[in-house]
């Protein structure tokens, strides 16, 4: 087999494999998402420490999971289910904080950290005439 033919074949195999992977992911999720389970993992178990009701074997959590299942059955949307629990237990019951005034910093600080880091790295590149000294960057 000639060298160029081998190269083409190898390239084709690589591209073919990549296509299978990408198409597989895009066609997507063959595992049916259990909505009750997904909702339950965003609701905090009030009698446990930092556990979601989907994870906790405690009686309270099991009972709350039953309520979630009931609400899903009734046709409530995700937000409606969350709202149902938020009204009864307070904001602390939701493990996935929403983007609002009091969680502003929670969401913005990580972004700011990424931005700062990227700027610091970019400025570390060899500048034609170094105007900034190393210690200021750190």
């Amino acid at each position, binding site marked *: 087999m000639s060298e160029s033919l081998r190269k083409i074949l190898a390239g084709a195999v690589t591209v073919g494999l990549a296509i299978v992977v990408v198409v597989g992911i895009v066609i997507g999720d063959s595992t049916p998402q259990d909505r009750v389970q997904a909702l339950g993992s965003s609701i905090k178990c009030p009698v446990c420490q930092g556990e979601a009701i989907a994870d906790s074997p405690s009686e309270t959590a099991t009972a709350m999971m039953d309520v979630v299942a009931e609400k899903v059955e009734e046709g409530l949307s995700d937000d409606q289910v969350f709202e149902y629990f938020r009204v009864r237990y307070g904001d602390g019951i939701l493990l*996935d*904080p929403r983007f609002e005034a*009091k969680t502003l910093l929670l969401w913005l600080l990580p972004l700011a950290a990424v931005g700062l880091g990227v700027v610091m790295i970019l400025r570390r590149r060899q500048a034609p005439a170094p105007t900034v000294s190393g210690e200021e960057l750190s």
Partner: protein
Amino acid sequence: MTALAGYFGIVLAMASAFVLALLGLRGMHHPHRVSRRHLELAVFGLMAGGGLAFLALELGLLADDFSVAYIADHSATTTPFVYKLATGWAALEGSIVLWGLVLVVFTLTVYLRSRRDKEINPLWVGALGIMGLITLYFFGLMATIANPFQVCVEAASIGCLETSNVPWATAMAPLEGPGPNPLLQNHPLMAVHPPLLYIGYVGMTVPFAFAISALIRGESGAGWLRQTRSWTLVAWSFLTAGIVIGGLWSYEVLGWGGYWAWDPVENASFMPWLVATAFIHSSVVQQRRGMLQAWNFILVIATFSLTILGTFLTRSGIIASVHSFTQSPIGPALLWFLMVILVGSLSLFATRIHLVASSPRLTSLASREGVFLLNNLLLTVFAFIVLIGTLYPMFAEAVSGSQLGVGRPFFDRLAIPISFALLLAMGLGPITPFRQARGSVVWERIRNPLRVALAAGAGAVLFGNRDGYLVLGVVAGTFVISVILRQLWVTASRAAAKQGTPVWRSFWRTMRSDPGYWGGQLSHIGVALLAMGIAISANQGADTQLVLEPGQTAQFAGHEITYLEDFERDEVNRLVLGARVEVTHSGNTVVLEPRLNRYARSSQPVATPSVDTSLRGDFYLSLTGIGGGRISLDVFWFPFIWLIWVGGVLAAAAGMFSLIVKKPARVATGAEEESERV
């Protein structure tokens, strides 16, 4: 007697730590004015005191000496041997005794290593002084507000009613104690997990002490990094092992089928790990290229501060409620210590950094250094996110009084993309040349591994796994591993060709010729396996709840589950209620025995799940209820979850590869040059 001996140990350690601190701080500027004899006395006194305190506590526990309040309140005559030992560090005061012991042992190792120098080395003696100061603080805690040797002066029927701080007070010992928390005496891993974690935490004191010593002395260069490399790696390995074993304990004991919940206590151990990992990588850059000098000081200060923050979070009660932490004086004491550390070391950094840092600039972002920078950015941002997510609810509650939950969905959303980026950096970094990398060189090194990774991903898709994270996880993990294996293969076969020996004999020789590099690569393989384990088990796992009567059979995830009978067993410290359940899968039958354990003086039973582990995965049964002729079970199927434990243990163990495997004096292979060039 126990109290008196133990307290004497604490006082002896305090006195020695004080002397060591004085000698160290004096010696770092005037080494000739410090005699080695005095240093030795201080260090040995420290060791004797710390050892005595620990020994007294452990012997007191084994002998059921309930005249010591800590023992009366946390142990019982019926507690099994292993858990009696483990009770020595199961509660606040005892855990600080263990902390002190580990700190003292690390101080001793630093001192013993320092004797290799003929003259007293000011950097080393300064570091010993800093360690003396830190040790003084912890033994000071034990002597005052966290005294493990309080004497019980008024006994309750079980446990202690009133205590005295005076070690020679007339004791009145209760006849029995309540025993350890049921969760902590349900599985032997709990005896192992805290010491591993503490060795990891406390070990970070060594590079911190050297960094501070170097800062005070204004000593530039990578000397302090090179000289503390062994301790950093030991601490990192133990921290890794501690976290992994903690996850395994959670999986084996808590019965919820999970191993990681992003709860504040777990985060407390994960944050220092992330920053320590960044530090290990960035210190390589400084040692090889002289860059990032200032950054390394920041990282080591951050790592040490995060270990103190972690202890504060776990020990102050602040997690349960912001307002409960002032109930015990330990919370404020740790918080003050953290403030002193932060303010002290950062102002030292700000005033001295011009003496120690002079960084050459980056030649190109497309280089090993560039990938190291990316790695550091990802790891520190990761740590920062975990920090914010952990502390934010506490601040929110303290400021506005309103509760706010930050849990798994928040952390997962940010952690998953960062983890994928880290895997990518892990695949590219080790084969990217320093200074300036040409694209063709990198492509040559990743071309075939990329094909292998894509083939693995395509395989996963064709086997019916279409979940994006799972497929990407398999591709990324396989990519990292095959890049490393290819590098080993190519390096070894080049060396073999040069010497005319078979390739397989060159593998070990290649790895031995550059233990630092290859130890890191083994660790990377471990992390890649762990990542694949997480991706697969989290996305292909399944669970259900069953209620079964004897003889009844149910089907789940290709398994046939039959409830045979229940059983009951009286053990010294607990009553065990269990169910025998037969599980059949493609002709193989096993009998699993999930149990519920009832401990004396505890209303809630603790589950012991029963797991059938095979290469395909774990079939996990957790008993949630038994009685009325029926059992209720939580049933989980976790494919390939063993990858997490195998990968985690490999990553931890490989951290010490370069300490155990020593580079031979002269290896006549091309291997070394090759690794130099990569």
